[in-house]
């Protein structure tokens, strides 16, 4: 059967191939920038409210001083390191389910949020980052008089 030619399908296929190639490269040459190079990944949730964007990340066991929150262009980057409290030999472990070391997570920020006014709080192992909505993007109520 003949199929309709969809030029964008080919572009998408090419993008996928490029993405796979860059991931393959990143696994061979790990850097701090690639999320593949990190030892664990925190869970994240994102909420959009009328006036702000709320991002929460689970980073238990990370001290505040080992936590970094950055805005790079239009993405939010959360990175840091979880350190072991005691130096314990591997053979003295009965269970070892918690992963230590560095982590990095980037979250794209939609353009209608103001990346110059970011607030971050950290409590009980949860990092909360709040970005306000740009004034022009806030929902407005306009009263229309009915004649």
């Amino acid at each position, binding site marked *: 059967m003949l199929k309709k030619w969809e030029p964008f399908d080919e572009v998408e296929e090419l993008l996928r191939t490029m993405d796979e190639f860059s991931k393959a490269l990143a696994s061979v040459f790990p850097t701090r920038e690639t999320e593949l190079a990190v030892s664990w990944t925190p*869970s*994240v*949730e*994102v*909420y*959009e*409210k*009328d006036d702000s964007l*709320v991002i*929460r990340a*689970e*980073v*238990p*066991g*990370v*001290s*505040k001083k080992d936590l970094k929150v950055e805005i790079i262009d239009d993405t939010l980057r959360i990175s840091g390191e979880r350190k072991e*409290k*005691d130096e*314990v030999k591997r053979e*003295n*472990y*009965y*269970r*070892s*389910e*918690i992963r230590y070391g560095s982590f990095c997570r980037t979250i794209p920020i939609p353009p209608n949020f103001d990346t110059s006014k970011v607030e971050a709080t*950290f409590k*009980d*192992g*949860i990092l909360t980052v709040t970005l306000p909505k740009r004034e022009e993007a806030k929902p407005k109520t306009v009263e229309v008089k009915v004649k």
Partner: protein
Amino acid sequence: MPRVDVYETDEKVVLVAEMPGVKKEDLKVEVRDNLLKVRGEKKPVEVEGEEVSGEIRYGVYERSFVLSPVLDTTKIEASYENGMLYLTLPKKEEAKPREIEIK
């Protein structure tokens, strides 16, 4: 179920449990006979708004452990810091390694 690390030193056994988002008052550590139970309730944060992406789960963290008879269950210490519960379970005096003096 929370993820845990359990390790042993000469004097104690240490249990570390990952419980992010649990408030200290919603955390409970119980010992009954030789069973240690750790329970923490992670209550959802009230957010009025649309969830764009959600990987965080809410509910109850619960896990039980059978304690070795060499541990002194009357001297268990617990602390909670940055979403991690740390339990120190000291060994009974007679179970600690000791050096015998040669006369």
